[in-house]
């Protein structure tokens, strides 16, 4: 991903973010995309980004890794 840093509205959910990244990377809607927080778990699709940020931020940024395979599962 060229642009690594984004500022996103907190009310968006993980499901929204997955759709956004798929569109940005031209990944087929029906393909798998896994998101990971702190390289340790995949958040529920219903998690809002603000909840994730509140709970798992490191130096004010929420760091999310993405993969088409279940890399940290």
């Amino acid at each position, binding site marked *: 991903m060229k642009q690594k840093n984004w500022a996103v509205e907190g*009310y968006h*959910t993980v*499901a929204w973010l997955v759709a956004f990244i798929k569109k940005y990377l031209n990944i087929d809607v029906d393909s798998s995309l896994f998101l990971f*927080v*702190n390289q*340790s*778990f*995949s*958040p*529920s*699709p*219903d*998690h*809002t980004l603000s*909840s994730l940020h*509140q*709970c*798992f931020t490191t130096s004010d940024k929420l760091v999310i890794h993405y993969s088409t395979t*279940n890399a940290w*599962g």
Partner: protein
Amino acid sequence: MDDYEIRRNIWEGKIPVEFDFDTREFTSIRSPQSYFAMLPRISYFPLCLSKALKFLSINVDEDIDVKDVWLEYNGQILKWHYPIGLLYDMYVADGTLPWVINVRSQNYPNELVHPSKDTMRHIFLQAVKEADQLKHKGQVISSMTKDEHNRLFDSVANNKFDDFWSVNKRLMYDETNKISYVPIRFYEPGSPFKQVLISPSNEDDSPCILESAIRKALPTIDFSSYTVISQGINVPLNTSVIWMARNLSYPDNFIHILLRKS
């Protein structure tokens, strides 16, 4: 701190469900058009549907693709990855039983996760990992084997309390790792859940109680207009959250709290 009886009763809690097959979509269904089942509150619908689907396949002439089947109550889509008890507490405000659930086969909602056992296993274990990330910075779950992780899920799927707790006790009671934050989610029907960092103790070392935890997530809440429910129980607001974490959590290691407008 360990209330075995409570944990056992929570595990064994069941909800009588009537699966009502939508006659507009299952046009050839013969009588009876319903299938009754007692479902564990702590389980998930995709893990409990095989008998209902078998009943369906016997009683209809048309070919049903199981992948098209989804569940609805009162116009609400029942999410596959939410525990059955949480969904009941969320959507059945008047507490009617049996819970009459509408079984659909058309217009499968896009937002539903895939109800396969593998997907349920993945989602369940990720929730357990997230809970341990909050409790122990993930140190306990990552010290467990993949086999132990699978035992957590399989024991829920097979309804085996002792198998579950033989592994889960390490996530609940770890002597070397004090609990940093209590995994807890607050639900209001129609909104995404809220989750914030809740320490088990206050600054003066007194145990954090449910009321303070709710206030942290919803600072402007007016308690007089809400009922606070978890596991089908009206939980007193002065209940210690660490006690709730150990005794009222769902198998995914989260306390799921329903805030219902009275």
